[in-house]
């Protein structure tokens, strides 16, 4: 027999036929009225949603009781509190506060925006999205507008609403009965459902359109007519958006994300000039005006930033062609790192070499010290990274350590020298890990750059400033929230990693200490640590030493946050297989090198979602500094504005604004985290 093998007849694989696109009626029947229980739930849910939206809309649009002008007029207070004031009283805002230093804030913001746009370009953020997803967003907005404005209590909708719901129920039951009688004819069923939807909307529109109900009692130009047209517009928006996403082609990702963002920037810039809010007459000195732009004093810089970002984007795209992407990314990362101290300088000090220095300060002395350290320290580091030096490097670090303890604990030497010694020790300790072999020259260069930057920042920090803040601290409002958030994130990260290493270490005392620290800190609520930073920390310092409250808060908060972070990082460390460590050992890596180049990157990558979650929690919990009377965003919304003479009884108004503000940030962060999680494929590899 030849080697032919008869294969049995295989029936051709039959795929289930693709479901034809379903109309909204079918969708509703499947998702809203699938069973009797489901119908009841839908109706109950609708009533609940109605009550909630009506309550919210009633709250927001009740202009006789709500003081939204308190939010718009106090926007500067909410964002940056008293800063920046100078001695030039001629440049003042509407409330008469000097604002001649306000350009510093704008400069800081502009720097951040520029960096952000360059990063967007160099990391190639922003893909194309489909017409369907955009249309769905607009459908959402449209139905929200529809729902919201139906809920505005100009008139009481409860009765018509109940009528509509009741009518709908009756219609539903009736049509269902008819359908049963005819048999399961889809066409008739759809017709019934279509009538069911269109009738109540029609009735509502007719009721509103006839205007047989009183629209009076409205102070601003939000008349019944506007109300009607808004509702109609909402309905149209929903319909058009729905039509736009019906066809199959709408699924294709065709719209560039960045283009949409640019378009939004233009729209927002335009709206800043158009939208106006009512202003109580007593607020305005001189001629009373009833209306003011939503960002009256800041629309010029905002417009500049928003519109300027578009050409900047194209500039960055051109730059990306010239500069290798990797170099660009590295440079940007470095700039982001530097931006924090630099912005602090922009905000607090005059970033040039100011003329005024503290008494007894000599620039020459500092420069000489810096140059001396640069050369001597460079020599020491070069020595420590030399392959033949062996264990003597440890001896050098030991000597440096003793010198540091001596200078910090037992002398009153210049703080500049003390800090330089610490930096040098860090570099010497890292020399073998980072600076061995071909990496030596680069390592020395990093040392040089660090020295120059540190000296620069130190001298500037000692320098004079033209900012004169009437309050204890230059930070306040949302700026303070940001400062605490960034400070805590930056400080707690290394601390948390060290604690995680201690906790997973095989050395019992380190482990015991880490475990004790982590468990004790986590068991006690954050607020007690914050209270401790104000009622205990001052006593732990020498009597003459003064520490800014914010610094104390950031220190204690970081200690708290680090304990949580350590637990997250520990999860990542434990997920790494032993083989990784063994392999790196086989390659001849030291323990430290294994940890830094092999273990840590993998461990951190696994726990990025958890770390972002921790950062979100930190952001939310910065609001706790309100309790210890720091003037953060929440404190100003809860106490400062409502307690001012004009802002009486605006607590719930400002709180709602604050809630929306916090919500936008945390929601955006959590969405970004989700996307990152998907991109990294955590748990899939």
């Amino acid at each position: 027999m030849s080697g032919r093998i008869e294969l049995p007849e295989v029936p051709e694989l039959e795929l289930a036929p693709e479901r034809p696109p379903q109309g909204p009626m079918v969708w509703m029947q499947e998702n809203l009225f699938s069973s009797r229980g489901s119908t009841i739930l839908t109706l109950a849910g609708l009533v609940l949603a109605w009550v909630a939206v009506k309550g919210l809309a009633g709250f927001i649009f009740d202009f006789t009781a709500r003081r939204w002008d308190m939010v718009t007029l106090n926007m500067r207070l909410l964002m940056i509190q008293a800063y920046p004031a100078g001695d030039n009283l001629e440049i003042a805002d509407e409330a008469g506060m000097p604002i001649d230093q306000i350009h510093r804030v704008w400069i800081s913001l502009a720097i951040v925006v520029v960096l952000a746009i360059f990063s967007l370009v160099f990391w190639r953020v922003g893909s194309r999205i489909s017409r369907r997803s955009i249309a769905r967003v607009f459908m959402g907005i449209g139905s929200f507008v529809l729902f919201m404005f139906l809920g505005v209590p100009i008139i009481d909708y409860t009765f018509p609403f109940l009528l509509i719901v009741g009518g709908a129920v009756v219609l539903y039951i009736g049509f269902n009965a008819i359908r049963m009688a005819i048999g399961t004819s889809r066409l008739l069923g759809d017709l019934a459902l279509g009538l069911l939807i269109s009738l109540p909307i029609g009735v509502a529109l007719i009721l509103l359109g006839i205007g047989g109900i009183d629209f009076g009692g409205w102070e601003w130009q939000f008349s019944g007519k506007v109300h009607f047209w808004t509702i109609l517009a909402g309905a149209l928006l929903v319909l058009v958006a729905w039509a736009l996403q019906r066809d199959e082609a709408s699924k294709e990702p065709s719209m560039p994300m960045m283009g949409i963002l640019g378009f939004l920037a233009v729209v927002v810039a335009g709206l800043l000039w158009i939208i106006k809010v009512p202003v109580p007459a007593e607020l305005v000195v001189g001629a009373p005006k009833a209306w003011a732009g939503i960002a009256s004093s800041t629309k010029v810089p905002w417009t500049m930033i928003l519109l300027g970002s578009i050409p900047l984007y194209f500039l960055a795209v051109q730059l990306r062609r010239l500069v290798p992407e990797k170099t660009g990314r590295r440079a940007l990362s470095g700039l982001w790192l530097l931006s924090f101290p630099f912005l602090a300088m922009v905000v607090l000090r005059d970033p040039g070499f100011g003329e005024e220095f503290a008494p007894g300060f000599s620039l020459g002395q500092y420069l000489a010290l810096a140059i001396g350290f640069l050369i001597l320290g460079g020599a020491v580091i070069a020595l420590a990274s030399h392959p033949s030096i062996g264990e003597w490097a440890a001896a050098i670090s030991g000597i440096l350590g003793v010198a540091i303890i001596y200078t910090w604990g037992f002398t009153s030497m210049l703080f500049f020298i003390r800090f330089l010694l610490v930096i040098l020790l860090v570099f010497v300790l890292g020399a073998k890990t980072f600076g061995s072999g071909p990496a030596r020259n680069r390592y020395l260069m990093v040392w040089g750059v660090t020295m120059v930057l540190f000296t620069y920042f130190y001298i500037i920090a000692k320098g004079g400033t033209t900012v004169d803040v009437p309050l204890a601290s230059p930070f306040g409002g949302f700026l303070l929230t940001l400062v605490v958030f960034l400070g805590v994130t930056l400080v707690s990260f290394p601390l948390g990693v060290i604690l995680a290493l201690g906790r997973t270490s095989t050395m019992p005392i380190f482990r015991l200490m880490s475990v004790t620290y982590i468990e004790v800190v986590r068991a006690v609520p954050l607020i007690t640590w914050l209270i401790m930073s104000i009622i205990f920390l001052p006593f732990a310092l020498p009597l003459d030493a003064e520490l800014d409250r914010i610094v104390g808060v950031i220190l204690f908060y970081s200690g708290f946050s680090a304990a949580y972070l350590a637990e997250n990082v520990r999860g990542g460390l434990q997920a790494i297989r032993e083989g990784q460590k063994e392999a790196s050992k086989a390659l001849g890596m030291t323990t430290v090198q294994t940890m830094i180049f092999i273990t840590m990157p993998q461990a951190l990558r696994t726990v990025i979602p958890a770390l972002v979650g921790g950062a979100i929690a930190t952001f939310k919990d910065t609001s706790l500094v309100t309790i210890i009377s720091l003037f953060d965003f929440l404190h100003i919304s809860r106490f400062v504005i409502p307690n001012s003479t004009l802002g009486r009884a605006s607590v719930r108004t400002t709180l709602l604004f604050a809630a929306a503000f916090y919500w936008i940030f945390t929601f955006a962060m959590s969405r970004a985290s989700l996307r990152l999680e998907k991109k990294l494929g955590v748990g899939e590899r």
Partner: protein
Amino acid sequence: MAVTVRKQERPPIWRNTTVLKWVAQLAFLFGFIGIVAVVVPQVADNLAGRDITFGWDWMTSRLSFLIREGIDLDPPTGARTMLVGMVNTLRVTISGVIAATFIGTVIGIARLSNNWIVTKLATFYIESIRNIPLLLQMFFWSAVAGTFAILDPFDADTLEAGKYWVAATRKGIAFSWISPWGGFYQWMIWVLIGVVLSYFLHRRLFKIKEETGRETFPNLSAFGLTTLFAVIGWFAHPVFSFVGTVVEAIGNLVGAIPTLGLQLGLAAVSIFLGFLWIKRFLDDRRTPAGLAKLTDDDWFRMIAAGVAAVFFAGFFLIVSGFSAKTLDVGEDFFNRWLAPKFDSTSNVIDLPIDEIQAQVAAGLSLEDIAHEQELIVNAELLGLSDADIDAAVASNRSALQIYRDLPDDQKDQRLTYIPPHKLVEGLSKARANDLNTLIENGDITTAELGAELEKLKDRADLPLRWSKAEVQIRGNNFLDLSPTSGVNITPGFFAVWIAVTLYTAAFIAEIVRAGILAVSKGQSEAAGALGLSRAQGLRFIILPQAFRIIFPPLGNQYLNLFKNTSLGIAVAYSEIVSVGFTTSNQTGQTLPVILFWMGFYLSGSLILSSVVNFYNRRLELVER
């Protein structure tokens, strides 16, 4: 061919990893101790510079501030002040945990509903609540509580105590409730016996049902038995009035233990426990081939356990005050706290009714009598002689008269608060006020009054009592939370409770959802194939399996809720942090207060997490 085996050289001491590791660890430890040794004297110096010496004296002396709500509004000692704060924290924690679990589970299931609108609503709830700072939500609810106004709290006429079923004012909400009454604890013994017997009955009936398949109604029978005992106990509870005497005898027994005995006992126990731990540890390490090689870590653990045991033994032996105090507290617990619970008339100024009649006949009001009786009880506690007490009563009577004669606007509202209803058990505040009015107007004869009081006295030892809502504003800001009133919810409690409940519920909902999704889809399909409805499948198939996954993170959320109640300080709820902060501001004793907080939260967290761990271990699948 000869093979030369090179002898392995021991590395020099500065390269020996064991030595290096231990040197590094010890150096770090001593460095840490050194820093503490520098900071602590610094703190002491700085405090001394402000005339504050570290100590615990404030725990035994009266702190001069009032607490807004709790078991004691004007506590006599600092320790009791802190206790009020702790009880308030636990109150809001426990009620919050129950409510958050319920709401969270419902919303978690709703997120997985087939119904589009229900899913969207649940998502909306979770996303909005989770992303807004808790403190902000608390502020919002506190502002909302400020708008409750069914009754005007400043209009005294509208606020008659014990008149309403529900009363809401800007100062809080009050509603009628059942409260334990005189015979409650005796009745509870009956109920307890019923529950224990029902447990055994249930087990037995259930076993029969499983073995024979005969329907034995285990749940129904158990419930019936408990109810039966509760009903019998309702009438027969005085049978157990002897328990008070027994408890007192136990208390006396505890008091009779010599301090040295307890000291030695505790020391022996700690040494024994240390020994036991080491022995168990070694047994664990023992393999059939003998004792396994012990690592540095193992040695460290054993040494640490030994040192800890010796340390505690030494502590108990040297610090005799600890043992003495423990005995004191133990004795007080039995004699002063537990025993009176079984005596239905103990916490009332129990004046014989004919005495009350006589005093009323002499022209005193019920209020005056109650006031004097309290004075006498307090004076007796202080150990004053009879003559002194008489003098005090006389001077009090004249002082009271002077006070009564003052025009109304000069009177301090808080001082006029005298509890006439405490004269006779069963006399509600409203009834006492009514009787007072009758007496003042001369509408009641002393004989009738006696009959009235007698009638009330007969009902004094009922186990439970229905009390109408009582909102009584004392002074400026205080709700009267006397034990006989209905339930009172202050704006602070309301804000903290609703905020932490809703906030934690959002997180619990996500946990529940994840847990249900983690149960494989085949399970729900199998449930459907068996003919269970979706609700039945959820109840009997999915949720029990999901619960294993849900439970550990759920425990974490409970811990978070417990810690989050500390934000009550921001909305004037008198929990432990708020009370402690006021204490520390008043006395300057920052460090002891901080230590107290840490101790409280640490032990709370440890207890909660050990309970969670215990159940978690019971829930774990036993794998073969």
